[in-house]
């Protein structure tokens, strides 16, 4: 490994009651941080390739640590975020080199896909500097319920010639949401959405996978209507079992 790591920290924050209201099941958020030596401390270099490679390494390592701390398979990761604090002998571009070119790809492998941008933050700081790591849904950047932030801080880092790198991951709630809807007898109210970049074919595949996953909790899925841009394109499919209830347009 290229990164010279001095310290690795993993935290899990489990919220069970908020404002007197039980959060059931609890929200669980993991944060993994690495304190590394900054190879460019104290000097200006045009080529930051070494930090770009370090970012790739750390995306995988810290992502895997988060998933392990949550005790979940990678595909149950729901949202993610990343951040870096550069010690005083470094420049903000060092954080950018770690975070932007290649960290996202290795982090996505650690959490199994991720169509949406990995939200990020960076700053220069000293020992104990806190940074708020932004969190967003990993498959759809505009999911409002998943806009969040988690504070990252290590008391003795970063030293002047170090960089603190943080990755945050939260647990998937799609399955839990579907389960609750079923218990309420309102499975028809579950809406799945994605706004990951189109054109790659990945978002539709992801949607099909999610539909199959959630449907398998109850029965074999039956297609009863397809709407695109608000227009009914077709009704009951002959290729899937007949739906028990036929949807009706009411508005």
């Amino acid at each position: 490994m290229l990164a010279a790591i001095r310290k690795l920290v993993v935290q899990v924050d489990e919220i069970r009651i908020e404002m007197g209201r039980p959060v059931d099941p609890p929200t669980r958020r993991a944060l993994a941080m690495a304190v590394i030596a900054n190879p460019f401390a104290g000097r200006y270099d045009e080529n930051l390739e070494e930090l770009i490679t370090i970012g790739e390494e750390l995306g995988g390592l810290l992502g895997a640590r988060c998933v392990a701390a949550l005790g979940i398979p990678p595909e149950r990761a729901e949202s993610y975020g990343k951040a870096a604090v550069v010690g005083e002998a470094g420049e903000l571009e060092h954080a950018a080199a770690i975070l932007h070119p290649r960290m996202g790809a290795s982090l996505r492998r650690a959490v199994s896909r991720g169509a949406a941008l990995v939200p990020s933050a960076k700053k220069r700081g000293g020992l104990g500097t806190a940074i708020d790591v932004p969190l967003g849904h990993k498959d759809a950047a505009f999911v409002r319920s998943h806009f969040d932030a988690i504070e990252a801080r290590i008391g003795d880092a970063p030293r002047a010639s170090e960089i603190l790198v943080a990755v945050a991951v939260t647990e998937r709630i799609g399955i839990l949401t579907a389960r609750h809807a079923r218990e309420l007898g309102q499975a028809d109210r579950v809406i799945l959405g994605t706004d990951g970049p189109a054109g790659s074919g990945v978002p539709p595949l992801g949607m099909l996978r999610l539909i199959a996953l959630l449907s398998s909790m109850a029965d074999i899925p039956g297609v009863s209507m397809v709407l695109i841009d608000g227009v009914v394109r077709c009704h009951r499919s002959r290729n899937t079992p007949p739906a028990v209830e036929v949807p009706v347009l009411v508005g």
Partner: protein
Amino acid sequence: MIELRRVFTHAEDIIHEFGPPPPQPLRRGAAVAIIQNPFAGRFEPDLLPFMDALKPLGLDLARRLLAALGVAAPAVQGYGKGAIVGSAGELEHGALWHAPGGYGMREVLGDTLAIVPSTKKVGAPGATLDVPLTHVNASYVRSHLDALEVRVPGAPAADEIAYILVMSTGPRVHERLGGLRADAIERWDGQR
């Protein structure tokens, strides 16, 4: 009786501190339970029933910390405990943790002999607490005299208490100050 609002775990591997890395990184960690303070904003003369009620929390938190560290009880060589009381409470509410936190952790770890060192304070959300650590069987083992800074972003609120347990799996990463060694404990009286 216990309203558990939030559980926070912290685990860290110290690979080195600018010296020669030991064969195994030092793993240390903390588990924090954020509970509603039932005595917030008033003076309650009789706190003892609540101390009993906290016993299951001590056991639960000790087990969560072992899980977060990913080790079994025999691997734990140092421990400590602490409390941060939100601003509508008093220090005595933090002192409630001594028995349930200490005995809970010792029960989960097996037959440890040393007193569990502790510290406490009244603090704002995000306050830090430096929790002392000592060897689990002899308080005077110098290599294991340590401290872990614990801090939960956003907690404790005024009507909350943060109860803390900490554990470590070894001595300070570059310990070299002599004194009583862990392999030279003689009296087995919890101190030496």
